[in-house]
């Protein structure tokens, strides 16, 4: 986008215009103003230009398997209903009566054939169509009910069981938006016969922190594990507090794949692949569901962290039963999550546990327990993430950071800094580095962020 176009953007204050131009100038050298992680005016712009414009995940299909099943969700901070109608079609409906705006649904999940607005009784079916207007013949003689159904999200689509919505009618399709990044999504979401399913409702909590900190981290920040998560090394007898540098090399760091990012670790020779799925689950995986290259990589995968811009992330990894501590039993877990904006410097995390639908009940229980032990509000790993993201937001809102234009450092992986090299023989798409010691995916997230904000 040219400077001229930007100047012409009437919705941007001069202060924001300067800030975005400043990001633009130094992002490629890995310098970013600290204040972007907590700025009230910028936050409003993010709601308008990112969350009301990009494809945002709103649910997993297994949350609403039956006709009439619904869940309440937010896009940015806005309230939407995700529902499966009587014909099995999924709708994303704005939770606001067309008459006077009342929320037509108060329960945050359930099953219904109708939404009856409490205020005056306008009633909508589970596809959002307005079906009853009390006293219509006397009071609304010219009202065309077909024009007054609940607002539907301008775009809705699914991929591998994940339901996405987009509030911009002119946005490209979900397929275009995800692009080649689906190649990596398939590994976690698209290889189990019968598909994946959520283990119940999302675990939710509200914390200090900026959604970008979380999105960047999950897009690929292997550098933080040895420091921030060191306490977890004490939970396994084989490490007992020491980090394992030898393992860090077997990486594929997806620095950029259509504006999204991921970080993968491949299994060493003596380690299990397929995300540590035990044999009973590996037997549920189907090579026909993916390409041979995907299957081959999956067979060597230990874990993946990934973010689809803006705020959808997942982790798929393995371990041993919590407290067991012995490294011999193979067990995998997977959590996908959203970093929901809840005001400047504040997020609500929604964290789901996902398992192969056809796995045994016992396996699902063990996987669920393992996931809870690592991620979610009480996760032994996630606890530590929450405090550093909160703490970044705290320093970012300082006046001094603004006045002195303090810059954070995202230089790992920029020209000459790191030994990390782009792999030419990597089987998957995107710009992929051969180790974790680079921050390319995090710059990618910010580049994506900048280009959306710069678009009037």
């Amino acid at each position, binding site marked *: 986008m040219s400077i001229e176009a930007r100047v012409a953007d009437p919705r941007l204050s001069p202060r924001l215009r300067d800030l975005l131009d400043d990001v633009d100038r130094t992002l490629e050298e890995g310098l970013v103003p600290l204040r972007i992680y907590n700025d009230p005016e910028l936050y409003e712009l993010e709601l308008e230009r990112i969350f009301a414009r990009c494809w945002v995940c709103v649910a997993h299909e297994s949350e609403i398997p039956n006709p009439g099943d619904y869940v309440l969700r937010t896009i940015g901070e806005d309230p939407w209903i995700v529902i499966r109608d009587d014909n099995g079609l999924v709708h994303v409906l704005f939770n606001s009566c067309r008459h006077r705006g009342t929320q037509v649904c108060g329960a945050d999940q359930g099953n219904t054939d109708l939404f009856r607005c409490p205020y005056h009784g306008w009633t909508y079916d589970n596809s959002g169509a307005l079906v009853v207007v009390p006293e219509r013949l006397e009071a609304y003689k010219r009202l065309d009910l077909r024009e007054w159904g609940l607002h539907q999200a301008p775009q809705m689509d699914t991929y591998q069981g994940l339901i996405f919505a987009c509030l911009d009618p002119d946005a490209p399709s979900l397929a275009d938006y995800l692009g080649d990044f689906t190649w990596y999504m398939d590994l976690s979401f698209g290889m189990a016969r019968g598909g994946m399913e959520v283990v119940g409702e999302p*675990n939710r909590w509200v914390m200090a922190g900026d959604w970008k900190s979380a999105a960047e981290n999950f897009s690929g920040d292997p550098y933080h594990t040895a420091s921030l998560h060191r306490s977890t090394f004490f939970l396994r007898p084989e490490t007992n507090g020491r980090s394992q540098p030898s393992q860090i090399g077997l990486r594929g760091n997806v620095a950029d794949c259509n504006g999204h990012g991921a970080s993968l670790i491949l299994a060493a020779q003596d380690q299990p692949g397929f995300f540590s799925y035990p044999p009973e689950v590996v037997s549920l995986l189907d090579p026909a569901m993916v390409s041979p290259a995907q299957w081959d990589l999956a067979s060597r995968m230990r874990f993946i962290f990934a973010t689809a811009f803006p705020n959808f992330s997942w982790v798929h990894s393995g371990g041993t039963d919590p407290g067991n501590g012995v490294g011999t039993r193979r067990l995998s877990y997977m959590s996908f999550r959203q970093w929901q904006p809840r005001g400047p410097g504040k997020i609500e995390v929604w964290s789901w546990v996902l398992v192969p639908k056809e796995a045994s009940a016992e396996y699902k229980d063990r996987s669920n327990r393992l996931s809870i*032990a690592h991620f*979610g509000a009480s996760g*032994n790993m996630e*606890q530590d993430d929450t405090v550093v993201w909160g703490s970044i937001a705290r320093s970012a809102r300082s006046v001094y950071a603004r006045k002195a234009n303090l810059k954070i450092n995202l230089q790992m992986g920029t020209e000459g800094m790191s030994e990390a090299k782009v792999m030419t023989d990597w089987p998957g798409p995107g710009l992929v580095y051969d180790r974790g010691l680079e921050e390319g995916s995090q710059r990618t997230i910010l580049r994506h962020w900048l280009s959306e904000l710069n678009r009037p």
Partner: protein
Amino acid sequence: MTHTVTSSYVKASDPLYADCLEWLNLEAELLDARRFREWLDMLSQDIDYRVPVRTGRNDPDHSVSFSTTAFHMLETWHALEERVRRFESGYAWSEIPPSRTRRFVSNVRVLQPGMSHEAQVKSNLLVYRVRGDLPPELLCGERQDVLVREHDRWRLLRRLVLLDQTSLPTQNLGVFL
């Protein structure tokens, strides 16, 4: 599951009630003082400890609004011990410096036991938590416990924490409830 209201409670003047009250108060004191090892010793090795996710379903008597599959915590003794070990490691950054907590245990109700070596105890719990210069957090709910008599001491065999919040107003759940 969650809301069987009973009116045949043990009288507060009963020694069993006093035992349970003391147990809960001691537990709260240990947890507020972060003496996690001593707390672990108050738990049975067979403990089933769970904090289900609460939903906002339309649920007139709150009987179905707790998830049966999704949990904030779902723990065995060994899983709890692992969490304690983490805090002891010296690298659990989320609690360096530690959050300051205060547990208010009230509405203690003890159920006339079927078996003399067990006691069923319900209590209401309010946890005030504050750390650094972040605003204070309040977590609250009911706990449904089963204490069991082991070697002349009461130990916690089962705990179900029924939180009132669907989305936890806390930086993380780095506290035991």
